[in-house]
C-alpha cells in the first residue's frame, strides 16, 4: 500500500469514529433529555408522598415505594447471609479445585446469566405455588434473592481473596482459632467489599421487572403485610406505559425516580470500591 492511501485510510477512519461517537452521544442525550423533559414537570413532593390515584395517572407513588422497599428488604435479608457464607466458604475454607467449590462456582456463573424471566417462572412455580406464598411481596423478594446471589458472592469473595496472606499466617502464629481470625480480623477488613456487593445487588434488584410480574404481582395498594401483592417502581412504569392510556407522564416521572435510585446506588458502589477499601485496610 502506498503512503498516500495509508493516510487516506487513517483520515477516513478518524472521521468515521468521531462521527459514530458523536451521533451515539446525541442519541443518548436525546433519550435522557426526553426523560427529564417529560418527567420533571410531573415530579413534586406530592408525587412521592401520595398514593396513586386513577390507575396511576394522577396521585403519587407512595405505596409503590413502600412495596419496592419491602421487596428489596426481603431480598437482602435472605441473600446477605447466604451470600456472605458462600463467599467465606469459597475463599477461606476450601481450595479452588475442591469439587464443591468448582461446582458452586460454576453454578454461580450460570446463575448470573439466567434470563430474569426464567427466574420469574421458577419463583412462580416454587415460592408462589409449591410453598403457597401466592403473589406476594415475600415471593418477589425471595425470587430476587436468588437473582442477586451471584453478584453478592463474587464481589465479597474477591474482597476476601484480596486480603494479604500475612493476616492469616500471623493470626495462626498467635494461636488464634480460624473462627477468631475470621470474625475479628478478616471480616472487618473485608466489610467494604461486602458493602459494595450489597449495593450492586440492590441496584440489580431495583431495576428488575420481568422476574416480578408473576411473583410479586401488580397490586398498587399500600401493602399491609408481607403476604400482600405489591408493585415495584419498574412494574409501575411498565403498567402505566402499556395498560394505562394517558399514563405516560407519570411513567416518565417514575422512571426518573427509578434511574435516580439506580445511579445513586451504582456511584456509591464505585466510590466505595475506590476509596473505602484502601483506608479500611490501613487502619486495621
Amino acid at each position: 500500500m502506498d503512503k498516500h492511501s495509508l493516510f487516506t485510510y487513517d483520515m477516513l477512519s478518524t472521521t468515521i469514529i468521531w462521527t459514530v461517537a458523536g451521533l451515539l452521544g446525541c442519541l443518548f442525550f436525546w433519550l435522557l433529555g426526553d426523560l427529564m423533559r417529560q418527567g420533571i414537570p410531573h415530579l413534586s413532593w406530592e408525587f412521592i408522598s401520595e398514593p396513586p390515584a386513577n390507575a396511576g395517572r394522577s396521585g403519587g407513588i407512595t405505596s409503590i415505594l413502600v412495596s419496592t422497599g419491602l421487596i428489596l428488604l426481603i431480598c437482602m435479608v435472605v441473600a446477605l447471609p447466604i451470600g456472605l457464607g458462600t463467599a467465606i466458604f469459597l475463599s477461606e475454607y476450601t481450595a479452588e479445585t475442591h469439587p464443591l467449590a468448582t461446582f458452586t462456582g460454576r453454578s454461580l456463573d450460570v446463575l448470573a446469566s439466567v434470563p430474569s424471566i426464567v427466574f420469574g417462572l421458577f419463583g412462580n412455580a416454587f415460592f408462589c405455588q409449591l410453598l403457597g406464598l401466592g403473589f406476594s411481596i415475600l415471593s418477589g423478594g425471595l425470587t430476587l434473592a436468588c437473582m442477586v446471589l451471584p453478584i453478592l458472592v463474587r464481589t465479597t469473595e474477591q474482597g476476601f481473596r484480596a486480603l494479604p496472606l500475612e493476616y492469616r499466617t500471623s493470626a495462626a502464629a498467635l494461636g488464634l482459632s480460624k473462627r477468631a481470625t475470621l470474625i475479628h480480623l478478616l471480616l472487618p477488613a473485608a466489610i467494604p467489599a461486602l458493602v459494595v456487593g450489597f449495593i450492586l445487588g440492590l441496584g440489580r434488584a431495583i431495576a428488575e421487572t420481568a422476574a416480578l410480574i408473576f411473583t410479586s404481582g401488580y397490586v398498587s395498594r399500600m401493602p399491609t403485610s408481607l403476604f400482600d401483592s405489591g408493585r415495584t417502581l419498574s412494574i409501575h412504569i411498565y403498567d402505566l406505559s402499556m395498560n394505562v392510556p394517558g399514563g405516560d407522564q407519570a411513567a416518565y416521572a417514575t422512571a426518573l425516580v427509578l434511574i435516580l435510585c439506580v445511579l445513586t446506588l451504582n456511584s456509591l458502589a464505585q466510590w466505595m470500591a475506590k476509596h473505602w477499601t484502601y483506608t479500611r485496610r490501613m487502619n486495621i
Partner: protein
Amino acid sequence: MIWSNAITSSPAKGDRFLFHVLRSFAGIAGILVVGILTFLVSESLPAFQQIGITAFVTDPSWHPTEGTYNLLPMFIGTMYATIGAVTLATPLGILTALFCQYYAPQAIASGYRAFIELLAGIPSVVYGLWGLVVLVPLIADLRPPGPSLFAGILILTIMIFPTVTLVSLSALQQVPKEYIQGATALGCTRWSMIRQIILPNTWPGILTGVTLQTGRAIGETMAILMVCGNVVQYPSSLFDPIRTLTANIALEMAYATDTHRASLFLTGLFLLTIVIVVIMSTQQARSNQAYG
C-alpha cells in the same frame, strides 16, 4: 481487638460448627441452579407427555386455547431481534471504545466513559418506555404500524451497546504499552496500528463480551415486549410486528393453565439451555486461549 477468651481458647469445636454452617450456605448457592432446572423440567413435563416435543415445531399456529402450540415463529422472532441487535451493537461498541481509548482527548474520553457507564445502569423497562413513547411513533410515521421487529432491534441495540463498549474498552486497556510504542516508533498511522496490532490482540476479549451480550439479548423481556407489537407471526419485513419467546411468557403466564402453562415453562427451559450453552462456550474459549 479480641473480646472474648472463649473464642480464642476453644478452637476445634466452634471451628467445625462454623465450617458446617458455611458449607451448607455454599451448598444452597450451588444447588440453586439445579433447583431451577428441576422445576422448569418438572413443570414442563405435562407438555412433553400430552402433546409431544414435535408439536412445538409442526403445529399450524400458536393458539393454546385451541390446542395448537407452534413456538417456531416466536423462536424466529427472538433470533432475528438478537442477531440484528448484536450485528448493530458490536461495531458501534468497538468503534466507541476505540474513540475513548485512542482518538478522544483525555477530558472528553473520561467524560464519555462515565456517560456510557451511566447508560449501562439504566433499567431495561426505562429503555422500553422511551422506545414505546418516542421511537415507535417515529417508526409509525416512516412505515406503519410502528411496533415492529425494527423497533425491537433498535431498542436492544441501544440497551446492549453500552456494555459492549465497556467490555471492549477494558480489553483495549490490557494491550501492552510496548506494542503501541513499537508501532509508533515504526511510523504506523493510527489506523494501521489499530487494525494490524491492537484489534488482532484484543479480539478474544471483545468476542467474550459480545457473546455474553448475545445471551442477554436472547433473555431480554421487558423492552422487547413494549416495542415489538407482540403479534405471533413470521415477519416478512423489518417493519412487521413480532413476538419473542420471552415476551410470550410474560404476556400469557398470568392466565395460562395446564398444557399451556407447561409449554410456557418449556419455553423457559429452552431459553435457559441456550444461555447456558452460550456461557459454557465463552468459558471454553477463555480456557483455550489461556493455554494457546
